[in-house]
């Protein structure tokens, strides 16, 4: 069992080396022709690359040998069970805890707090994005169970986002779309997606390619709408009260 866990690691090492090669070549090129860093500084960069290389390889091994097969198995068992609707609350729970802990989401929250001048506190944003993503994963599970086409959800979702863009300023629009990408971290992509594919495989009449995939795009849509909504509220409430105050103090 332990031996089978490590099978395929040599293949992963080759793939990761190939994946990192292009950026490494660019770095070497820059070092020789532009930067001319001290050898000590350049050595640090090389160390960083070696750590990145080992880190990605070990991470991928854990995902391929542990998360993906177990996720898929769990999805298959739950999808085939007579009470497969439990996937909807389970999806909700998984989505919520996956995002609550995502480091990249915390970075984004700090940005929003800064841009809104502290008006949108990190906690509020964190919980609203987590709820948004939780709802998305639940929706993604429902989509697989009942065979709803992806476009039926994504097209209205993005239309709503574009509509809200009219009432939100550019910084919030930018952060909203940034956060959409940021929220889909390694846990969602490795475990939750594998589970969704398992569910789609288990249910009669579902296509694992058409119904299994699509989950990540729904997860990416949730924070876009959440941040735009918060930006809209911020714009309407905070700026209005600020204008009133200005008018009173400046006495126009």
């Amino acid at each position: 069992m332990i031996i089978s866990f490590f099978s395929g690691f040599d293949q992963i090492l080759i793939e990761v080396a190939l994946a990192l090669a292009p950026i490494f070549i660019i770095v070497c090129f820059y070092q020789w022709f532009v930067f001319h860093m001290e050898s000590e500084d350049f050595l640090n960069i090389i160390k960083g690359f070696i750590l990145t290389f080992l880190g990605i390889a070990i991470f991928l091994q854990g995902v391929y040998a542990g998360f993906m097969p177990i996720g898929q198995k769990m999805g298959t068992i739950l999808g085939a069970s007579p009470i497969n609707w439990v996937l909807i609350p389970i999806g909700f729970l998984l989505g919520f805890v996956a995002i609550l802990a995502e480091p990249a989401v915390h970075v984004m929250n700090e940005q929003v707090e800064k841009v809104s001048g502290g008006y949108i506190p990190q906690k509020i944003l964190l919980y609203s994005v987590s709820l948004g993503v939780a709802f998305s994963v639940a929706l993604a599970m429902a989509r697989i169970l009942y065979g709803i086409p992806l476009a039926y959800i994504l097209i209205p979702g993005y239309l709503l986002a574009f509509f809200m863009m009219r009432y939100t300023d550019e910084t919030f629009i930018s952060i909203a779309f940034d956060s959409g990408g940021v929220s889909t971290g390694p846990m969602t992509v490795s475990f939750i997606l594998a589970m969704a594919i398992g569910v789609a495989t288990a249910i009669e009449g579902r296509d694992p390619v058409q119904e299994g995939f699509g989950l990540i795009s729904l997860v990416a849509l949730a924070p876009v709408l959440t941040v735009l909504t918060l930006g809209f509220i911020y714009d309407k409430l905070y700026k209005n009260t600020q204008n009133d105050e200005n008018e009173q103090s400046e006495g126009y």
Partner: protein
Amino acid sequence: MSRIKELALEVIYSVIPITLVIFIIQLLLKFSLTDLIQFLLGTFFVCLGLLLFFLGTKIGIVPIGEMIGDHLPKTGKIRLILFIGFLLGFAITVAEPDVQILATQVDLVSGGNVTKLVLISAVGIGVAIFISLSLYKLIKNIHIKYFLIASYTIVFLLAIFSPPDFIPIAMDSGGVTTGPITVPFIVALGVGVAGAFGGRRSSFGFVGLASVGPILAVMLLGVILGR
């Protein structure tokens, strides 16, 4: 040392809640002991891998992004900036572990119809083009909404002509592009270039625009392969 400890805690905090929930579900579903061990071993590898990887990104990848981002505007040649942005966008995306994971799953599920290499290349080219576009937007100070509305409109138009198998994969490619290696690098690059304008322009929106590129590229791949 304290930095390593901080990163280790960050990794543990981000992985533990979800693994705990999954573990409890496994117990409820009466998974075998082998499965439980396999999952825990996987969790350990994921944690160790993420720790090394975050550390490496901080030491090696992000400083490079900052240095190149700082240097690019000094060249003063828009075409050169856009070209380097293209190369960097491609190079950093093919290195992204999230992209690798999605491509592996697509390769497996589609039975080799969409191979790993083809998908990763399409995603990489998509990001590359959109990093160039983001830099152009930053330099010319164009409102982001024009780019977003135009690109998502093209996405939905292409979806009409794309075979149904490709639509979910294309949409998902957009999400995975912006993972733990790409985001800090792109942000560092954007901050560097935006810095040349003395803080009057922000680098927000780079990540959001970078996610549209792969959607378009993979849809287009579908339209071409689907014929």
